[in-house]
């Protein structure tokens, strides 16, 4: 492997559809970390919605579609702990009865990473390119935290941004209530969870709420906007890259 590894950016379906800015922030961060970034096709979705809905056949079909796309690269990086967790932890589980595919899934799993932990742990990034004077708080998204151990890496990089003050919210590790289709299957419970989460985030006095997963971010931003809160929401990659040209999540030209 050269010291400029070839990295496949696994964009994730939510970033692709909702917030391409996060994809570009990821590209810039990876390039700043000395990677050659490509976006191989076809990329659709890691299959997690099917996996968590109990639809194993669709999940396996999508894994078989995704794995060959990612095989030629040194690394696969996703701006999401949830999707990276799917690639890294769950793809190999799908093929217990298919040794050939299991080997391929394991090989892809071994080189798949969540963006921020990849930057810190694999590429040794200490100082991100972003510059921003703001008081920010960080929510630990569940899959990144518990499946991949993403906890200190984003905090370390955020603290290295001059002018950025990082304040911890109470119960930062508690789920925001998104949970993929959970948020629409059980809206009352999901609402209670996102309400508790966003109240705790607001209680820090932060102006900006950050996280590493767009699902959680859409959920928290949607709740905060509904309440008319002053707290704004962005993906952590946007701040680390200093790419703030897009309005905060849930806001447009006119706010």
């Amino acid at each position, binding site marked *: 492997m050269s010291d400029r590894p070839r990295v496949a950016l696994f964009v994730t379906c939510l970033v692709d559809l909702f917030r391409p800015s996060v994809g570009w922030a990821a590209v810039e961060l990876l390039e700043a970390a000395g990677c050659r970034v490509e976006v191989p096709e076809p990329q659709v*979705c890691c299959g997690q919605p099917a996996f968590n809905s109990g639809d194993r056949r669709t999940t396996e079909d999508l894994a078989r579609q995704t794995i060959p796309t990612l095989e030629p690269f040194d690394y696969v990086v996703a701006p999401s702990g949830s999707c990276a967790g799917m690639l890294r932890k769950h793809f190999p589980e799908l093929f217990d009865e298919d040794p050939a595919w299991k080997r391929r899934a394991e090989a892809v799993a071994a080189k798949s990473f969540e963006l921020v932990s990849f930057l810190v742990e694999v590429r040794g990034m200490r100082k991100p390119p972003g510059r921003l004077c703001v008081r920010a708080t960080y929510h630990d998204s569940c*899959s990144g935290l518990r499946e991949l151990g993403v906890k200190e890496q984003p905090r370390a990089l955020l603290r290295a941004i001059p002018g950025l003050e990082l304040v911890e919210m109470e119960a930062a590790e508690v789920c925001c*209530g998104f949970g993929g289709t959970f948020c629409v299957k059980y809206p009352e419970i999901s609402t209670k969870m996102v309400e508790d989460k966003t109240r705790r985030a607001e209680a820090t006095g932060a102006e900006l709420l950050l996280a590493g997963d767009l699902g959680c971010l859409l959920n928290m931003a949607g709740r905060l906007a509904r309440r008319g809160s002053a707290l704004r929401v962005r993906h952590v990659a946007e701040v680390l890259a200093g790419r703030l040209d897009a309005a905060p999540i849930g806001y447009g030209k006119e706010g």
Partner: protein
Amino acid sequence: MEPQSLAFRTRARRAIADPVIATAMQRLETGWQLGRARAAAALPEFDALRDAAVAIKNHALSHLDLYLEAFERRFAERGGVIHWARDAAEARAIALSICREAGAKTVTKSKSMVAEEIGLNPFLEASGLQVVETDLGEYVIQLAGEVPSHLVGPAVHMTRERIAELFAKAHGGPPKQESAALVAEARQVLRRRYLEADVGITGANFLIAETGSIVTVTNEGNAELTQGLPRIHLAITGIEKVVPTVEDAFTLLRLLARSATGQEFAGYTTFLTGPKRPEERDGPQAMHLILLDNGRSSMLGGAMREMLRCIRCGACMNHCPVYLATGGHAYGWVYVGPMGSVLTPQFVGIDKAWTLPNASTFCGRCEEVCPVRIPLPKLMRHWREEAHRRGLAPPTARAGLGLWGFLARRPRLYRLATRAAAALLGALGRRRGRFGRLPLAAGWTGSRDFPAPEGQTFAAQWRARRGGRP
């Protein structure tokens, strides 16, 4: 108990609106959840203990037949009588016949989830016996005609005021204000019951194969009085509770209270080895043990095997954001929280409980705190697969997933569709950046705005800007 789990969403909605439940759940968070964190942090070998516990349970389950037979031999040598029950009905019938043979009128009972699982109380009561719960929480919910809402604290959902009302109604006199006075009142009433009882029924936290002992764990000492004062002691538990040695039981005991309530050890831990011997002054004349299968042996060979490691500490529910939002009664059957979402489909059938394993964000906190490292999300996902195979989810959800799966398998079509969706929603939401309402998205927009896409997909932008060159 007839399972009400299919109504989970309705029951959850009601529970979330109930301030009494919200207060009770806050108590759990600041009490037992924090307690566990402190207890785990204070014990450097806590995680090593968990690994040891997993190994003990896995070993015992791999040789379950062997250890059960060894236990039975020792138990019988000490004068105990074992009854094997294949299912709930058999277990109930055995329990009743033991009570009948003893000519029992009054039965005291210390907390047993297996007794709840088989619906023992209503059955014995319908057969003319008076059953008195002696665990304070169980006693309270018995007076209220309710079922437990938590594995360890069956009455966590109750306020002191409500308990005072129940006591005043049952015992007479004005309602007491102080917790201490309520406890004293219950103690006074229950002491009399212990002495009147003909049979005392307990559960068992562990069975020890090398000695034939039953281990009970309580914080009130009620299991000791329940098993020691009446003539007959009847214990009832599941076959998965057997461990090889006393030392194994201690390893698990060191985890149990820490995981449950944050205590280093529960108030009372008792090893019962046979009925009263001739030279002894105290103890029951006879000791019976009902060992219940009720599907457990079939779990051994299947996807639910790891669930048999469960030591019923309740840590999974104390840390579950869904349980902490709804409380236990929303789950609609005996076992609640994450462990209940795995066990209920096992015991009542997935068709009557598919809602429970679906009611999780898979946040993974339950697995993170489980002392015996049960992969609860994975087991819930297994039930979702079973529910999917049987087509139990509502047709709209199935259709939505089907359409998405159709598109996702066709990347070109998917790209066209997402481009169009991003463009349409992006244009409509361009100014405000979000929607207050969207067709087909009421579940989301009922309480949240829906953030608008930026307008172009990343794939389209990448092609336009970097297409063709690496």
